[in-house]
């Protein structure tokens, strides 16, 4: 029975009250590939990235106008009214974040939902940049979810073309110096040029991994190749406005000419050049190693077992980056089924606790507050590297204390639940005697439930 506990907690998002523990854990995990819905109704009802890009443009224009008026009136510049236009984006963020949580609480394929969260963190955008605030949800819903069961190369391309990524890492305004617009700007004495932010993070974070053999020249060449990967519907110059809000290859800012990345020549013109480089990066052995290591760390323990890393790496290379093949390797890996437990992140723990008591949805405000208080606001890791995936980042004294407090709050609002039966259901065959006794000896049903939600079993997966 221990296996079904691993399936529920390490692979999945924790058992849900009333669900029968999976009798065939591996089958249960594999079947989720067929059950996963990349675009459930709750997501389809949200504004997509074109609407959100427009919302951002309006907010930005309103802000500029407010600032202009304030300056014209010689009034003291006031920050608050200028930022007010961004409220619509904050609301959009709150709604999308609530949808993410609610899907994680109810979706029929929790293992695949976990993988969605994994990839969204691997390709992190962070909402502490205003331009990303409204778009972070759409990024996960439009770039990650549809590709989570596809090829790594397609996932990578969808990510690097998404407006959220292009704006977050400044690619949208990167101008080839020899492009049509670059030359015009140069003649006028305007400095417009390359921004290599995204190119560097693609190599360092998204594909090859840091210190894996690329150099500054590769970064610069990739940045040149990617010029033109931009977002329409935002620019004020008519030439850069594009056909509409959303991803747009802006030929007038693309740096012409042949590129050389990691020793390979790319003679393609226009958008095809960047795509060819990204496809090669996606298939690179260093990328396979990098992704294998991160997946092994996420499922096999903070110290990723080397044998597991190399099996995942092989699966990546021989399947041409076929993600389900890699996931199947994980499911077959004894290291995952017997490995040391992972300390749950605040995101993981909160979901597990809410699922345990059968919560099916959380209002947007409560959702935001919960994750802020526990130290892991949704889509705001603060850096393109995403949240760290090891215990030292999360297992802190105050962090634990807060979880214990939240556990009591969740328990006191959960209604009548027999924590004794629930504990056996959540951790089939894996419940420690000490936890069982603590729950059975609690002085009230609410206290018993709180002890279960704060138990050592619950803190880890």
């Amino acid at each position, binding site marked *: 029975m221990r296996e079904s506990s691993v399936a529920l907690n390490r692979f999945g998002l924790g058992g849900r009250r009333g669900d029968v523990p999976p009798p065939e854990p591996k089958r249960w995990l594999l079947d989720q590939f067929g059950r996963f819905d990349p675009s459930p109704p709750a997501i389809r009802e949200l504004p997509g990235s074109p609407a959100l890009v427009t919302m951002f443009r309006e907010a930005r224009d309103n802000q500029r106008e407010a600032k202009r008026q304030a300056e014209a009136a010689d009034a003291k510049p006031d920050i608050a009214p200028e930022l007010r236009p961004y409220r619509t984006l904050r609301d959009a963020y709150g709604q999308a974040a609530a949808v993410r949580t609610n899907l994680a609480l109810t979706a029929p394929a929790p293992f695949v939902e976990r993988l969605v969260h994994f990839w969204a963190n691997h390709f992190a955008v962070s909402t502490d940049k205003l331009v990303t605030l409204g778009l972070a949800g759409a990024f996960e819903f439009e770039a990650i979810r549809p590709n989570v069961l596809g090829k790594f190369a397609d996932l990578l391309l969808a990510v690097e073309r998404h407006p959220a990524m292009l704006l977050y890492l400044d690619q949208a305004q990167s101008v080839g110096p020899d492009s049509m617009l670059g030359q015009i700007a140069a003649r006028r004495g305007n400095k417009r040029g390359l921004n290599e932010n995204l190119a560097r993070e693609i190599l360092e974070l998204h594909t090859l991994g840091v210190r894996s053999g690329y150099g500054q020249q590769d970064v610069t060449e990739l940045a040149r190749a990617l010029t033109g990967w931009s977002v329409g519907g935002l620019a004020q110059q008519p030439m850069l406005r594009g056909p509409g809000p959303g991803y747009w290859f802006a030929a007038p800012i693309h740096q012409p000419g042949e590129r050389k990345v990691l020793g390979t020549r790319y003679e393609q013109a226009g958008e095809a050049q960047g795509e060819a480089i990204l496809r090669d990066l996606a298939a690179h052995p260093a990328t396979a190693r990098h992704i294998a290591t991160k997946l092994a760390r996420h499922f096999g323990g903070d110290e990723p077992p080397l044998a597991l890393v190399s099996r995942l790496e092989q699966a990546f290379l021989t399947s041409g980056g076929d993600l389900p093949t890699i996931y199947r390797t994980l499911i077959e890996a004894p290291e995952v089924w017997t490995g040391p437990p992972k300390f749950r992140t605040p995101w993981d723990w909160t979901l597990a606790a809410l699922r345990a008591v059968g919560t099916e949805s959380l209002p947007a405000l409560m959702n935001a507050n919960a994750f802020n208080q526990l130290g892991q606001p949704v889509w705001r890791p603060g850096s393109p590297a995403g949240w760290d995936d090891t215990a030292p980042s999360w297992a802190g004294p105050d962090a634990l204390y807060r979880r214990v407090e939240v556990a*009591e709050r969740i328990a006191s609002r959960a209604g009548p639940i027999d924590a004794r039966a629930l504990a056996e259901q959540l951790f089939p065959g894996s419940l420690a005697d000490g936890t069982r006794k*603590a729950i059975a000896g609690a002085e*009230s049903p609410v206290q018993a439930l709180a002890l279960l939600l704060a138990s*050592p079993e619950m803190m880890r997966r």
Partner: protein
Amino acid sequence: MIDRRSLLTHGAMLSGALFAPQIAWAAVPTERRLVFVIQRGAADGLATLAPTGDPAYAGLRGELANIGGGTKLDGMFTLHPALTQLAGRYLAGEALFVHATASPYRDRSHFDGQNVLETGGKLPYDRDDGWMNRLIGLLPGGAAKALALAPAIPTALRGAASVSSYAPTNLPDASAEYLQRIGRLYAGDPQLHALWSEAVQTRAMAENLVEDGGRGAAASGKMAASLMTGPAGARLVMIESNGWDTHAGQRGRLANQLIGLDALLAALHDGLGTAWADTLVIVATEFGRTAAVNGTGGTDHGTGGMAFMLGGTVKGGRVLADWPGLSQSALYEGRDLRPTTPLDSVLSGAIAGHFGLDPVRAARTLFPGGAGRPLEGLIRT
């Protein structure tokens, strides 16, 4: 959830609406009020109302036998010294104690025991609704406002009739007790134990965690009273009191618990003012504790216990007990106070008398799993 402000607003609306013809001749809701205080965790009746006159008491209780003075109520029973204001109500003839009482439940699980006490069923979980909720339907007008002083509606108030809940900031809750249990739960886990010890030390330095001498509990009692006054005030209120599971170090912990309870009841009395004359407060727990002290200066889960009631309608100044004695042969299963009075008979009798209901019908509706013999004469007529 409602908050106090919305309650007050509703109150204002209702009093204005009294002039509206459609409800001018509606059944007048009762003026009578009921407060049910549940002591979760099995409060020790043998220490709260100590049978100091029983020859076996001192031997069984050992270090706990001396409760430190108290108020002698009669030749047999001494009320715990922490309950000074409750003693005053007893002397005023407004408090009545029932000893050696128990619900039909005979095992020793807190949850199951509380479930039987709250649902009025015979077995744990054989009913979904609670007796307080069913009581709403028996009252004149059937529309008495019911309220739980708790974050969620407790089982006793769950059911078909609508009920509100309100969690004041200072509920006398078991948070400290819960945190202690967390500490024990983490004791065997090196990582969590280290984190937890550090967190607790940090918190202790940050805020001086002194006992508040019952101020939190008094605030709850005052709050409850304020929610029960006025024409739209609640008529049925349930207050949850946690922290009674005194397996170790009972002497100090129980005294603190009782200080809080005494303050809560006194604040209710003072806050209700003239409405106290129409009020019945019932205090009960899921079961009693072992007759003998255990190895850690505490007591374990038992059977027979003590319940009491107070209020302006109570025919008090008495202890009701068909005392079974504490000799080894008299104890239930050789360890617990033997229950001789069904708790449901006490509750149904008191409630029927207080609200003027047919006692047999009340007993059948509220406690279908009980003995069906409502005690009469508990309420002034």
